[in-house]
């Protein structure tokens, strides 16, 4: 009655598949399925099993197909896989497509309200009487559509042995302990699980089993981690404008800052978050605040970054510190606004007309989103320049496993800001753009300084070392050379890349950001196929000497990234021109996170040549 007999026969002797499969859940967006999906991934996580979840959603509010893919991996491989082992088909529109995705022997759980029976006989399939189960529950009328999604959670409890107390824990977290919604949802999960146990015969090989692999770990999105990081980085001003997928960062700041950053004495805010009218204003405000001596930031995505170009140039040239988070989505133009990419690297690096060179930080995990969340301010204020943190939709929006956040190991670095007393020490020869220390970084004062010599005139026009207007060619040259020197100084402040070596590796993989899980998994497969690799995960531009050494030390370097043009490959080619012959671009962007499989295929085929 339940699973297809043919498939059953074929798979009869197949081993059980424990904690090593991928689930794709197809639902209608805006229907509340996100709560169910999060409940599932969180429950698995609390069972101690490495898990990742990726939301593949349309640029739309309600009524379109949306997919959530969960990967469960006892080995800790958490990259996206191209096709699922299990499909939960709850969306009428994508139903057939979703069913077709399953490989033979795959498992299908579906709403029999959409289709009474499915044709494929090479898969295991369980129909769920969703409507009936919902009606039987005591969910109020107006919430029935919403809780319908809990039915498939219940099915996984019964069929995959998802532990129900973990499910309760997940619901409790999701609803911040509010009993009513927790109970409502829990009940229907429970009743569905019971119905399944009574009515479905488990014939497929897929199981979840408790492990100990997630102890002391957390499940969090990069945007939330970044917001927490910024809060501990002492952010004082945030100017932003809504845009997918960066909005979550501002949303989370608005959650965390009031909790963490009220002045204990007065209860007043030590920060301000302003929703601007657009991105030109968002960055403009941040530039004003950064110039004023505040830890200032803004967050955006591609189209917003484009609009920030002119202000980016002003910040670079007037030497104003601020932090710009670019949670990348797929461009060019509006592109695929709800899909992930690493397509803004070149743009961010050169953002602004004329000769600009910007500092980029490249977090590869929520842990680094947290860390760069605070560290970016230290770097920006030390260097008196905008710092761009390039996250992406996959990292920013999806739930990733992370270690607990560690308290910043160093004192806050406010850079070379001088106040009334410090100015005295200059004995009248302070100049805003004087390179006193030979590192290209001058000393700066900020408004409110009451020393009569503290004020200076900030501008985007040519200036001499005393910030006076100048069109003098020598002044211009000198200033630009100092800026170049400052960029060299920056190298010493950049987070070093993360290296990983394998025995007798001749080739290196150089990657960055959210592709890390896919890259690390690919390396294991490659090793198994006789191609051991070392890896370098880049975390900043400008590059440090470690990058040079890594490239020099290998026969071949594969630069893996999620864009069309191999953007970091290009920047590396410019950085290490003598080694371009050995650097190969492995680049692709189609909106989906890279898979290990694709990376393996690319590198293997090139190694075979």
């Amino acid at each position, binding site marked *: 009655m339940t699973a297809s007999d043919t498939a059953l026969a074929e798979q009869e002797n197949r081993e059980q598949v424990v904690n090593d499969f991928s689930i794709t859940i197809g639902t209608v967006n805006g229907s509340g399925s996100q709560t169910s999906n999060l409940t599932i991934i969180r429950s698995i996580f609390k069972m101690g099993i490495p898990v990742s979840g990726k939301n593949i959603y349309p640029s739309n509010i309600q009524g379109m197909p949306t997919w959530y893919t969960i990967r469960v991996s006892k080995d800790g491989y958490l990259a996206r896989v191209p096709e699922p082992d299990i499909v939960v088909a709850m969306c009428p529109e994508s139903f057939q497509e979703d069913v077709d995705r399953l490989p033979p022997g795959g498992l299908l759980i579906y709403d029999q309200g959409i289709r009474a029976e499915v044709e494929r006989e090479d898969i295991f399939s369980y129909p769920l009487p969703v409507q009936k189960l919902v009606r039987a529950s005591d969910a109020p009328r107006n919430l029935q559509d919403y809780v319908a999604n809990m039915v498939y959670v219940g099915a996984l409890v019964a069929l995959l042995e998802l532990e129900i107390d973990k499910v309760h824990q997940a619901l409790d977290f999701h609803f911040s302990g509010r009993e009513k919604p927790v109970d409502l949802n829990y009940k229907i999960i429970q009743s569905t699980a019971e119905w399944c146990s009574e009515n479905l015969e488990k014939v497929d090989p897929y199981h979840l089993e408790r492990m100990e692999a997630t102890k002391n770990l957390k*499940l969090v999105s990069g945007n939330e981690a970044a917001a927490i990081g910024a809060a501990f980085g002492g952010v*004082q001003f945030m100017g932003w404008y809504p845009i997918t997928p960066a909005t979550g960062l501002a949303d989370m700041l608005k959650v965390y800052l009031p909790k963490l950053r009220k002045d204990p004495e007065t209860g007043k805010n030590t920060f*301000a978050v302003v929703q601007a009218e657009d991105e030109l*204003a968002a960055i403009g405000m941040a530039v004003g605040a950064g110039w004023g001596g*505040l830890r200032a930031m803004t967050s955006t995505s591609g189209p917003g970054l484009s609009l920030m170009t002119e202000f980016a140039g002003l910040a670079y040239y007037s030497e104003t510190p601020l932090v710009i988070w670019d949670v990348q989505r797929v461009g060019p133009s509006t592109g695929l606004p709800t899909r992930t990419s690493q397509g803004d690297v070149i743009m961010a690096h050169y953002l602004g007309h004329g000769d600009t060179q910007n500092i980029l930080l490249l977090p590869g995990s929520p842990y680094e989103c947290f860390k760069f969340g605070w560290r970016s301010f230290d770097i920006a204020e030390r260097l008196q320049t905008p710092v761009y943190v390039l996250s992406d939709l996959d990292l920013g929006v999806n739930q990733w496993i992370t270690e607990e956040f560690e308290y910043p190991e160093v004192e806050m670095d406010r850079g070379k800001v001088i106040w009334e007393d410090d100015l005295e020490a200059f004995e009248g020869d302070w100049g805003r753009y004087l390179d006193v220390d030979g590192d290209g970084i001058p000393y700066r004062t900020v408004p409110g300084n009451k*020393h009569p010599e503290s004020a200076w005139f*900030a*501008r985007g026009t040519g200036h001499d070392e005393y910030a006076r207007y100048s069109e003098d060619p020598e002044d211009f040259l000198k200033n630009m050379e100092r800026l170049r020197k400052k960029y060299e100084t920056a190298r010493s402040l950049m987070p070093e890349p993360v290296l990983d070596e394998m025995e007798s590796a001749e080739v290196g993989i150089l990657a960055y950001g959210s592709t890390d899980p896919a890259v690390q998994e690919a390396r294991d497969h490659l090793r198994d196929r006789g191609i051991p690799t070392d890896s370098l995960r880049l975390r900043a531009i400008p590059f440090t000497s470690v990058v040079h050494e890594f490239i020099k030390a290998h026969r071949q370097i594969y630069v893996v990234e999620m864009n069309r043009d191999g953007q970091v490959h290009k920047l590396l080619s410019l950085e290490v021109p003598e080694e371009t012959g050995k650097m190969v671009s492995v680049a692709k962007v189609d909106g989906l996170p890279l898979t290990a499989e694709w990376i393996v295929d690319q590198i293997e085929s090139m190694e075979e040549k």
Partner: protein
Amino acid sequence: MAKRGGNGQNELGLTKDEYRGAPSTLCKGCGHQSIANQVISVVYEMDVLPEKIMKFSGIGCSSKSPAYFLSRSFTFNGLHGRMPSLATGAVFADHTLKAMGFSGDGDTASIGMGQFKHIMRRNVPLLYIVENNGVYGLTKGQFSATADQGLELKKQGLNPYMPVDIVREALASNATFVARAFSGDVKQLREILKAALSHEGIAIIDIISPCVSFNNQDDALHSYSWGRDHEVAIHDLAYVPPREEIEVDYDKEVMKKVTMHDGSKIVLQKIGEEHDISKRVDAVNLLDRADEEGILLTGLFYIDTEQPSLIDIKGITEEPLNRLTNDRIRPSREDLQDVNEMLF
């Protein structure tokens, strides 16, 4: 006011020279220069320490002018049309400072229209001056969005578009202080500047400020001679500083008084008809009539001292944010422990 320290010093012991800036590079006779001079006088007379002022501007002759006064005040001469956002961020740095913005009609009404409208909506505490000459001075005289329909200039031909009226825009955007002045009428300008500097919120002053190089035709709105011949003040406006008493001959029949947050007062003496400066629609009516009559109506059109400023709205600490020490802006280890525990 002023001259109290003797030797031309004000109460702070500063001479007027200490309020000046770099030598001006504006054209001789430029209206903007006259505004610059009045700002110097006003700040000096109000005994404001130059270090307690921040200045902001966009790009244009008008926006260059902050270099020519108050060189002891921190200044950011930013991007074309983007002064408002720059100022909005910066006022959070030290909200105890007075913030002044200088812009042109091109800077504000052409490229800057969006930011102009939105800074008013947020009631950012900023004295926002539009030095309005109907043209782009610095790029050699093209029509700006405030140029009159039908204005004809030698190099530009005829302007076919309806003008943007800064005062109307400010009223439509619920700005909390809306005035118009004429840079050829320095007496009134000074009083309006003082009143605006005492306002806690956005104070918009549209100052008709002739460009002698590109738009100073006798028969056209933005010229000196037209202004001189057609200016009509809504009222006689006098600013009374916080500590001074209003002179005895204060006559409730013909005078109105507005008390500002800092205790200063604006005294308005009726000239023609009564104008209720708390009613926006009355101001629009006045403007319509002025347009019909072909006069340059100046004065304070509207004021609202009740709306909270953006600083109030955001409830930030009394102490300037940029003076907070590291320990006050980085939460504790325990806080992070709590956060970690709160995460799933």
